């Protein structure tokens, strides 16, 4: 007991020391897919994301890193208005989707429309209790698509896009639960891809997977970014440096530093960032 108390005391005394470097990237406005501007998010009274401003580059991978509880998932879930599902939550600020300048957080914008354009892949694979085919077709079906040939074509494209086609083409009607964890996660990626989203959000997509399955998903992200924009939360520094083009480091709900991944990992500007990526944090 006494030990933890003294530790938390240390943390408290550190708090005022946070020097926030903010965004160190000056991005050509025509190259952004989304502009996050002064974003604040509240769970009731808890201000979990504080005044965050970053550009999200078009057809690039943006990684969110930071210690547990710093607000990465909370921030990510603002992009598809996931927080709207729960009571007592509040957004402030804007996430402007380019090129048409639509504010995703505006009350006037239907969260369903946002989610149709911004898909999400979760930490734990969550296939539906349906066949492999129906899982991938789900997004089309709920949009009212009935054309069988069209759906079959989209499902095939999505499964190929998620590098799962070869493994599943002969068992499309089998239950998705029979797939391995890594396959299930790629199925969830295929499901997200089938509706041709503009942005795909990944919340620690590989934390439940073994290194080989993780490698496959990282390769996949590399390919996907040629045609869509990706925002990924990860706890794994190697993963962030391998897959991302830009990295945002968050701490206690604040953006400590945002930079090109190369620059941030080679020469972090903020001492806190350096401590975190070298693993000597706290």
């Amino acid at each position, binding site marked *: *007991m*006494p030990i933890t108390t003294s530790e938390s005391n240390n943390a408290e005394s550190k708090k005022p020391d946070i020097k926030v470097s903010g965004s160190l990237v000056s991005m050509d406005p025509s190259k952004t897919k989304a502009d996050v501007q002064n974003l604040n998010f509240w769970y009731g009274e808890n201000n979990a994301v504080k005044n965050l401003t970053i550009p999200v580059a078009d057809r690039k991978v943006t990684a969110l890193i930071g210690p547990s509880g710093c607000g990465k998932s909370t921030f990510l879930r603002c992009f*598809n208005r*996931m927080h709207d*599902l729960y009571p007592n939550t509040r957004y402030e600020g804007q996430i402007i989707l380019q090129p048409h300048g639509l504010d995703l957080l505006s009350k006037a914008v239907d969260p*369903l*429309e946002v*989610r*149709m354009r911004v*898909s*999400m892949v*979760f930490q*734990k694979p*969550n*296939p*539906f*209790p*349906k066949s492999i085919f129906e899982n991938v077709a*789900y*997004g089309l*079906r*709920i*949009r009212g698509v009935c054309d069988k040939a069209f759906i079959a074509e989209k499902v095939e494209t999505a499964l190929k896009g998620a590098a799962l086609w070869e493994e599943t083409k002969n068992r499309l009607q089998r*239950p998705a*639960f029979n797939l391995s964890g890594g396959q299930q996660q790629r199925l*969830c990626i295929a*499901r*997200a891809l089938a*509706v041709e989203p503009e942005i795909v959000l990944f919340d620690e997509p590989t934390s439940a997977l073994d290194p080989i399955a993780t490698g496959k998903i990282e390769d996949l992200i590399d390919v996907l970014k040629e045609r869509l924009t990706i925002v990924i939360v990860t706890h794994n520094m190697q993963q962030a440096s391998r897959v991302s083009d830009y990295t945002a480091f968050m701490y206690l709900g604040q953006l400590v530093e945002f930079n090109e991944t190369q620059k941030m990992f080679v020469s972090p500007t903020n001492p806190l960032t350096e401590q975190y990526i070298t693993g000597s944090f706290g």
Partner: protein
Amino acid sequence: MAIESAEKAGPKRYQRARQGISTRQRVTEGAIEWALFLAGASSIAITVGVLSVLIYESAGFFAHVSVWEFLTGTQWFPQFDPPKFGILPLICGTLVTTAVALSVAIPVGTIIAIYLSEYAPHRLRNILKPVLELLSAVPTVVYGFFALSFVTPFLQLFIPGLPGFNMLGPGLVMGVMIIPYVSSLSEDAMHAVPMTMREGSYGMGATKMQTAWRVVFPSALSGITAAYILGISRALGETMIVALAAGLEPTLTMDPRQPAATITAYIVQVSGGDLPHGSIGYQSIFAAGLVLLLMTLVFNVWGYRLRKRYREIY
């Protein structure tokens, strides 16, 4: 200071605990195991006992009436001379009233479950669920009386020529009685579906309705099937409502507007003293009871297999 004393006290305390396991605890464990075994065994013993009485008494009955005649006869008139023991009218009455009840209880119960689990605010759910469960706490005699003196006259306004005793009224009322069995268990099953499942659906742009029907419902199907089977068993075994309001007239008809008798209603009628003890007519209630038991068993086994299949698939 605090740490030091805790460290000193710690290992000693563990030692004592370990010694405890080897002596007293082992005895208690053994005793508990026996008590649990006896509790489990007694339920089996009671079931076997009931079953053997049923079979024994039915054997007496089948010594006089052939099984073939019993199962295929279309007339059930135990008081006649010669008596007719064809169980089909009773089975028919049982199935029709059950079907009417389920046609109310399953859709309404399922919709209520979806509303409570997916739509209702948490507070409302915590109020509504117990209130709903009160429906099944109403004594069935009250329901039977309600069917006879209120529902049937009300139905007569819309269905000209509906007899005062019919299967429709009591069937509908029975359905209302069963709603909480269906809705409560289904709701439990849907409530237990993890939030990540729903988020997956909402994340694709699905509406609440789509998420509830296409994702939550199939995810909970195993539990929902169990709820339906319980509803079916409850309807098959219901006695009072049909005995009071369906007419006690064994009729071989699929038309719910007609009066009829169910197996349970017949049993209660005869046990009430219509036929002398020891007569064939009296023994017939055991044969009828056996049939009812087998019917319930069939539905339960069927439900069990369905559940297993869904669990395997999903």
